[in-house]
């Protein structure tokens, strides 16, 4: 987020210079809107009962993966129902034309799971996949039914790098270990975040105006709200499942 | 108590029958008297379901492959694609032209009314056992052939020649006209092709004598498709043997000698077929110099997801193709409609036909009903990946000699268990809906038939 702000400031500076030089009129309002940008802050809570963990038998590589795995997709962290791992994004927003930065974290195959289980990335970023387990994994990523990547990695095998070309939800599976699941959200703009263990999220430098805000959760589904982002300062928003 | 007993007995019988069906179907699997040509699957290196829903039923791809004279739809591949060749011969690919069907009736139990002398309940094992050999394919681009021979062990045990014809395809342009010459089944492209029912026609059991103009006693009615049956009592073919009312004839004959042409010149939605036959159920030669001819049109709706349907109609004009007992020639004609619908594993098809006899000798009009109709509807569905359940309804509104004619109505149920795609076990029961009606007619004498069959194509 920090690096994105730097870029934005840089662009603001450029825009100002163009504006001062008299070019600012030509690109029109799109450029001007960006001068005013607010922050979106909020929380995501889940008020229902936590579903029981999904316990699956491991049929392959039990010596490393264990006899069974327990998967809890709804991670609640306090009595109020603070929900982590919910992906929050601003919808319908134009790409500000920033260059995508390098991805902060690669997708790891570690202890028979994908880490992070829920990932976020910017279109144009390079996705890196590594296998840290002493067994073979295959990372099978699909986007809208089309295979984005299906690669095998032996223990200590070469990391695999591929540029993310299209925005949208990418599902991640390992066909050899069917209990290994994950997803990667690829956005064509920088306005996205994920809730932490307090259920909170924060998205900075959003162009002012009314924007639909969308919350995605792996098990609980999608919530949407239209939020008026101010020209300066922060706006608070609260999402609650179900 | 008495009521309880009466209720209990049929109930127990049904339960036992059901248990037997379930037991048999769980044992193994197999096919019926299929008309699948495994040679084609071998030649094109594909599985059976590329052309069949379940043998012998065709899926839309199989129908177009058949129409195109055993060539891939829209091509003139000649079936010699990507194969090793020695000159013009494909010597090492004989198996690509040969197919074998083996079917045996494990148990057959027939319940008869005993109203005909000498008839009674019968249980037979291993009869009939059928071995059918096919050789079929394409010789070169747009030239195909088909020859089949059948041996039925336990009956005549003779080698019988079935269909044998040559195809010349795509005359005048792709899919414009496909010609067949020889002995072929005229209704091959009809909505309900005579040779492709899941309910295999069951032959009759006759008692002698079989003299000229004598009608043999039918102990057991033959379970053929009523829509395709001859329908008339008291008709004879030109060699003076009786044409039984259940015999498949005319447009829906298993094989007739002649020439026909079919095609889809306007695209996939419409098919035409026109043909000329010697007629008269004659195996060779033509004692009747006038010909029978027919026309069939078919409309297809087959573009949408998992669904296809078609509707067809035909008219068959006979010309002195039968005789009555006075040795006078009569003409039999048939008009019919048929339809088929497939949705995933549900397959429903049926036909309704009207038969007419014309040119009756004067004086016979009052003793001979010259109009008869027949209807057949079959429905099938795969209920698991191996089990096919089906039912058939047959009604024959008979014509012919008023003194002897009897209509017939039969319902069949069938469970087919596929051990593999080319092997199936069939458990089948057909019962006579009119069995409470009295009389010695064969149409009443057969009350119920139960069988377990096994069939293999390879």
């Amino acid at each position, binding site marked *: 987020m920090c690096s994105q702000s730097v870029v934005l400031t840089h662009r603001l500076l450029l825009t100002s210079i163009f504006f001062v030089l008299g070019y600012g009129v030509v690109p029109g309002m799109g450029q001007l809107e960006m001068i005013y940008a607010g922050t979106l802050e909020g929380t995501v809570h889940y008020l229902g009962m936590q579903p029981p963990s999904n316990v699956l038998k491991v049929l392959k590589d039990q010596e490393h993966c264990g006899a069974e795995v327990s998967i809890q997709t709804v991670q609640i962290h306090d009595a109020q129902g603070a929900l982590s791992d919910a992906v929050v994004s601003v919808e319908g927003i134009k790409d500000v034309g920033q260059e995508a930065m390098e991805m902060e974290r690669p997708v790891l195959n570690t202890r028979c799971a994908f880490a992070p289980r829920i990932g976020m990335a910017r279109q144009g970023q390079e996705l890196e996949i590594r296998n840290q387990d002493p067994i073979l994994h295959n990372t*099978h990523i699909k986007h809208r039914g*089309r295979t984005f990547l299906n690669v095998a990695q032996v223990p200590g095998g070469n*990391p695999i790098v591929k540029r993310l070309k299209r925005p949208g939800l990418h599902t991640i599976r390992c066909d050899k270990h069917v209990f290994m699941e994950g997803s990667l959200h690829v956005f064509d703009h920088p306005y996205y975040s994920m809730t932490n263990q307090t259920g909170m999220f924060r998205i900075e430098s959003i162009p002012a105006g009314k924007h639909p805000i969308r919350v995605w959760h792996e098990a609980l589904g999608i919530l949407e709200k239209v939020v008026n982002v101010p020209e300066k300062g922060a706006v608070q928003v609260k999402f609650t499942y179900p | 108590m008495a009521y309880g007993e009466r209720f209990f007995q049929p109930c127990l019988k049904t339960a036992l029958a059901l248990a037997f069906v379930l037991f048999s179907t769980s044992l193994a699997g197999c096919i019926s008297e299929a008309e699948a040509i495994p040679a084609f699957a071998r030649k094109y290196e*594909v599985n059976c379901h590329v052309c*069949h829903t379940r043998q012998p039923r065709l899926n839309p791809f199989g129908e177009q492959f058949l129409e195109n004279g055993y060539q891939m739809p829209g091509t003139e591949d000649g079936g010699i694609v990507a194969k090793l060749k020695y000159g013009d011969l494909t010597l090492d690919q004989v198996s690509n032209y040969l197919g074998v069907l083996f079917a045996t009736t494990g148990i057959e139990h027939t319940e008869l009314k005993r109203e005909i002398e000498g008839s009674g309940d019968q249980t037979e094992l291993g009869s009939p056992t059928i071995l059918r050999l096919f050789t079929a394919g394409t010789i070169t681009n747009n030239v195909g052939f088909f020859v089949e021979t059948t041996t039925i062990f336990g009956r005549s045990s003779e080698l019988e020649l079935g269909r044998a014809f040559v195809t010349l395809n795509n005359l005048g342009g792709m899919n414009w006209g496909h010609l067949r010459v020889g002995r072929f089944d005229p209704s091959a492209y009809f909505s309900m092709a005579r040779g492709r029912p899941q309910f295999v026609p069951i032959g009759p059991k006759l008692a002698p004598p079989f003299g000229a103009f004598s009608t043999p006693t039918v102990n057991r009615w033959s379970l053929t498709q009523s829509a395709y049956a001859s329908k008339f009592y008291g008709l004879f073919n030109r060699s003076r043997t009786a044409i039984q009312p259940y015999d498949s004839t005319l447009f829906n004959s298993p094989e007739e000698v002649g020439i026909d042409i079919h095609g889809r010149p306007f695209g996939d939605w419409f098919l035409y077929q026109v043909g000329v036959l010697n007629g008269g159920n004659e195996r060779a030669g033509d004692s009747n110099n006038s010909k029978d001819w027919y026309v069939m049109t078919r409309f297809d709706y087959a573009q949408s997801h998992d669904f296809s349907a078609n509707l067809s109609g035909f008219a068959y004009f006979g010309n002195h193709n039968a005789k009555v007992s006075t040795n006078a020639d009569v003409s039999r004609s048939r008009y019919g409609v048929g339809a088929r619908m497939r949705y995933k594993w549900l397959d429903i098809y049926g036909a309704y036909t009207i038969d007419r006899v014309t040119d009756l000798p004067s004086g016979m009009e009052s003793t001979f009903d010259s109009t008869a109709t027949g209807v057949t509807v079959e429905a099938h569905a795969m209920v698991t990946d191996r089990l096919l359940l089906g039912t058939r309804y047959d009604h024959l509104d008979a014509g012919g000699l008023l003194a002897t004619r009897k209509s017939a109505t039969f319902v069949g149920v069938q469970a087919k268990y596929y051990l593999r795609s080319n092997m199936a076990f069939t458990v089948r029961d057909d019962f006579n809906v009119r069995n409470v009606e009295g009389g010695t007619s064969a149409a009443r004498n057969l009350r119920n038939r139960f069988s377990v069959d096994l069939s293999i194509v390879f």
Partner: protein
Amino acid sequence: MNIFMKRFGWALLMLGMAQPAFGGSEMTSLNMVEDGRTIYERSCLICHGASGKGDGPAAFYNAAFSASRARDFTVGNYKFRSTVSGSLPVDQDLFRTVTDGIPGSMPSFSGLSIEQRWQVVAYIKTFYSGFQEETPESISLNGSPIPSTAASIQRGKALFEEMDCASCHGKQARGDGSVALAGELKDSRGLLISPNDLTNRTGWKNGTTVRDMVRTLFTGLDGTPMPSYESQLAGHKEDAWHLANYILSLSHHE
């Protein structure tokens, strides 16, 4: 509409021929697509469907309970490629499949003339917009076949174990690995899919030569669980050929 388009295409082609300097090749390609459409509707539609979704009236029967059903051309998922995992196939890949067919599932359409096959390839590509946006490239197969010596086969066998091929294909490579037997392998349509029996070459879908095998190892089969081993085999130039030699040695073929 169809006839109109065709005539329109012809008219454009004539125009293109009359004035070759003005984009003659584009006109030809329009005509090529239209001709391809005619062939597609005759030969391919029955399985692949009018809109290319793999939902033609006969598609269901070919793979009602398990893979592989007719390809959905609108998604851009292609099994038989010479390109990296996740890429579209090059035209030659599509042409190869049309020509050779796929054992078990799709007949060979070599009954179409070479020109007609290229036309149908051009039409198939119109179902997915990605073909206009992406330029797929065939990958290098790391050299050429190496003799199938005992040492090569031995090395291939070690790689077979190292790459954990047995998980799916089984220790004896008969397509009976533990993951396969557990029924956990599904294709992109969610249909149960069986790994190939590597001891029986007649069922291999992506070709039976050592070169075909290396290509399959490198590209994987998109839309199926078979992953690409390219990056794992990339470091050691000849390993892919050793592994392919071993796999081919499991089946006897004249």
